[in-house]
């Protein structure tokens, strides 16, 4: 466990920052939005990212990966949070890859992981069924029929769902709707007959979809892990995803914070730089303190994925909660401290505010994770 980055990770951070600020700045996201881009991210950019090894950053070397672990991944996600880069990095290279690593058969791993690593294949997790994160409340059914399963149900808030080649579908193979047991995970081609996908236009100009499954036939070989034991994969999978999105939120917070700090040092009112006013200084200093706390929490949670998975559930809920609160505070204050210009579309601060709001909702909002943290703590 380390609470500081090593030399290699710091180098990776510099590389990532250079690449993203020149190839995928916030302006690129604005263009995707204004052009109503059908995919929602640049395939060319994703290919470049894959060529640098980012799609395989957490993959063991045996599958053609860089094996940088989650601390290395966190560095890249944080930088992509600073530039609000739209790409399948989170949905596919983190969530998809983790699902395969945790539950995939050797055949899945051998065929799919190298394809993801090379940028040719993308995945998305189809989990949520209501407007709040309730990972075990699953009504989508998976009915065993000979050597295959029949999927029926509907999913929402599927990140990158409309562009992914394959979906990882969480379905109920037995038990009642809210039962922890009886879940199974399936790999399903998005183009399979009976899969119906609608892209949703969200405030952050990124991609999510609603997806219906109508009598979709899935061969039993595309089951991830064991039938009815899906939670054993889903729990660690979600915790990894939560820590990863927390890293992106850290970057988002830092950038909004830095840009606002620069503004406080150049904007004049009442004949003085507004950064000299104590009313703003104390709020900014308080946010700096919270940034420092979140930095430690995030590093501990990322390294728990690599080194001490037994600590991960508590740390993942801690990290998601703290970063939810941080990014909410920092982006709201960023708008407020910019004053009138802060609510214009021209200023990029609004993009940070909107991405923050979506990220807060991904895989558990503050209320969800506070409840989980308390439950894990025995109260």
């Amino acid at each position, binding site marked *: 466990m380390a*609470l500081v980055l090593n030399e290699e990770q710091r180098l990776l951070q510099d590389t990532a920052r250079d690449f993203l600020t020149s190839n995928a700045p916030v302006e690129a996201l604005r263009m995707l939005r204004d052009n109503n881009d059908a995919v929602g991210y640049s395939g060319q950019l994703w290919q470049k990212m894959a060529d640098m090894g980012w799609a395989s950053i957490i993959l063991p070397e045996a599958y053609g990966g860089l094996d940088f672990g989650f601390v290395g991944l966190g560095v890249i996600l944080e930088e992509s949070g600073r530039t609000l880069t739209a790409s399948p990095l989170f949905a596919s290279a983190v969530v998809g890859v983790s699902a395969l690593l945790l539950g995939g058969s050797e055949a899945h791993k051998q065929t799919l992981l190298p394809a993801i690593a090379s940028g040719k294949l993308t995945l998305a997790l189809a989990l949520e069924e209501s407007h709040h994160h309730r990972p075990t409340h699953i009504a989508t059914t998976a009915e065993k029929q000979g050597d295959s399963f029949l999927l029926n149900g509907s999913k929402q808030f599927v990140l990158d769902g409309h562009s992914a080649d394959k979906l990882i579908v969480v379905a109920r193979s037995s038990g009642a709707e809210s039962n922890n047991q009886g879940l199974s995970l399936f790999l399903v081609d998005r183009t399979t007959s009976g899969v119906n996908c609608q892209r949703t236009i969200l405030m952050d100009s990124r991609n999510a979809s609603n997806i219906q499954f109508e009598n979709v036939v899935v061969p039993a070989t595309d089951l991830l892990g064991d039938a009815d034991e899906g939670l054993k994969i889903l729990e660690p999978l979600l915790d990894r995803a939560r820590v990863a999105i927390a890293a992106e939120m850290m970057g988002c917070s830092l950038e909004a914070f830095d840009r606002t700090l620069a503004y406080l040092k150049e904007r004049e009112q009442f004949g003085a*730089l507004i950064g000299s006013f104590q009313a703003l200084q104390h709020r900014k200093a308080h946010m700096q303190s919270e940034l420092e706390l979140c930095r430690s*929490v995030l590093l501990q949670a990322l390294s728990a994925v690599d080194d001490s998975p037994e600590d991960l559930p508590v740390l993942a809920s801690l990290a998601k909660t703290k970063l939810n609160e941080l990014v909410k505070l920092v982006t709201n204050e960023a708008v407020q401290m910019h004053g009138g210009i802060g609510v214009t579309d021209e200023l990029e601060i609004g993009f940070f505010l909107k991405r923050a709001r979506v990220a807060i909702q991904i895989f558990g909002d503050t209320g969800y994770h506070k409840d989980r943290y308390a439950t894990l703590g025995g109260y």
Partner: protein
Amino acid sequence: MEDLEQFRLDVREWLNANCPESQRQPMTPEEQYWGGRRGEFPSEDARRWFERMRDKGWTAPEWPTEYGGGGLTALEGRVLKEEMKRIHARTPLYGIGIWMLGPAVLEYGNKEQKKQHIRAIVNGETRWAQGYSEPGAGSDLASLQCKAEDKGDHFLVNGSKIWTTAADKCDWIFCLVRTNPDVKKQEGISFLLIDMDDPGVSTTPIALISGESEFCQTFFDNVKVPKENLVAELNKGWSVAKALLVHERKLMAEMGSDSPRHILVPNMAAHEYLEFENGKIADARLRSDLVDYDMQMQAVALTHFRTFEEKAAGIRSAAPMVMKYVGTEAEKTKSELLLAIMGSRGLGWEGDEFNAQEIDTVRLWAMSKAMTIAGGSSEIQLNLIAKNVLELPQS
């Protein structure tokens, strides 16, 4: 690293052989030993434990051996601390001398001053008080007025110092005094050591909202102080004070994790005082507040570890600059939360209707209010972060 592991084993063995069983228990404030001419050992075991540690120089483990210290490196010092913590060994000697004045004299004092004062601190012979704040100089410390006039072979000191912790039990006091009123306020301050037995020094305790009186006001009425008691150059006291304040803030940030009192922690208190339904605290708001507190404490503790790791790796970050603010605010939150959890059992002041733990918790709640004021208030901490970390323009 191997040497360090060997050192750890040696320390462990020595502690096991030398730390009396009774000195491996949590202690009440009355059981702490603070040394000084009037210092009394709470028990024979405490005396024995102190003497054994003193003889190794481990009352001040990292100070140089030539003045009686332990001569340990920072890493060895940490190992000793960890090993003591492992067996819950009590701190054998407390004091501002060890925490603050010693480091200041070692860094800024001359050879004579080190000889005179350092060993006496290590040996628990002198107990020190701190004379910084004045009735008219709190957060604006640099505006202090207690003056020391140059009278040839001595300084003549007149004025008063407030919040002098336990000064009524101390032998010496280190003071910030005004030696030049005609320059920028920070540039006319000197750092002076004063023997509290000198004629003209008097001290009165101040009753606090906690019911305790650990703070005093100390008065100086034509006190003659020898010239050789000046630490660092004349009018350079502010730099010494600033360096010491960093020490003090670090101590205050850590205080919560090393509380000598046998008091409740909110999680345990919840099980004792709150109703549970299906394994959850029934009062949703209190449950939510408890999560907030637990999360904040975990984040503060992790940040504390991070500062150690960064120091070892030679990395600078803003983390040390925020610790006093976040640490003391979290302590205050903790006390508020404990009282809320205890309900009307968290209102008792004295008498037999409440148990000792309940009364201690209430008293500590009142005391916790001082934590975000002393050593530079939270507002001052935020000013410092704005100035030194964020480099915001100053008005």
